[in-house]
């Protein structure tokens, strides 16, 4: 018998066909985090290597030159993409670390909440700064 048929036969596995379609498992979250962590890992490699090149080109330069580099549309777009990719990746990564080591329920909830706040804060600060520099309105 084929593997797929064995899985769908409820006399072999107690998982119902509906549960298989929903694909959420016992935690009701499914593999969404696992998959997003791999997707952002791939995008991070490209975007962060670009980020390193951008930073290296700005090394030791003054304010005007730094604004000029970041205000370049290609640089702005790469930076914004990098911040979305990185903050998504680090948010999931830290949540896994918290869930592995923090076992007290209340502390865990607070830690995961703080993790989300930090990730959103970093993302909003970085994206806002790049947009402001890009649109030419630095104070």
């Amino acid at each position: 018998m084929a593997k797929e048929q064995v899985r769908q036969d409820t006399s072999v596995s107690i998982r119902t066909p509906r549960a298989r379609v929903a694909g959420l498992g016992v935690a009701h979250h499914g593999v969404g985090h696992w998959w997003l962590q791999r997707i952002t890992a791939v995008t991070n490699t490209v975007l962060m290597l670009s980020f390193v090149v951008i930073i290296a080109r700005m090394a030791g330069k003054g304010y005007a030159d730094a604004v000029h580099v970041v205000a370049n549309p290609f640089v702005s777009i790469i930076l914004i993409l990098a911040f979305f990719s990185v903050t998504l990746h680090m948010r999931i990564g830290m949540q896994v670390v918290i869930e592995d080591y923090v076992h007290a329920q209340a502390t865990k909830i607070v830690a995961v909440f703080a993790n989300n706040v930090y990730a959103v804060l970093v993302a909003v600060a970085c994206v806002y700064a790049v947009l402001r520099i890009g649109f030419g309105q630095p104070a």
Partner: protein
Amino acid sequence: MAPTARPTVAQPMSPHLQIYRWTWTMAMSVFHRVTGTALYGGTALVAIWLVALASGPVAYSYVAGFFGSLIGRLILFVYTWILMHHMLGGLRHLAWDFGIGFDREKRLAMSRLTLIGSTALTIVIWAVALLVR
């Protein structure tokens, strides 16, 4: 159903890190998590730097002054190395996700390459950045 009393028998515990003999794959796995945590904190430095740049020349001069100092450069150098190490470690884990490189020689070589490659990449990046300017 009434809550039952928890058994008083000592439950067997899974041994933690200090019990095991350190191997390359284990060391690089632990270090992947450590570098990830360090990068997590490091994103605050990127945010501070960009917000300062968006705030104007005075704010930027403070931040640029710090990153240009000896301590600032040391932080950036270590940050580069940690970033490269986590990136190569991530690629190694991606290869393993696809079932590639599980035999003894390959997984040992891949783990060693993470450390050697990240060090080499960091030196190349800093050499190029210092030479180009």
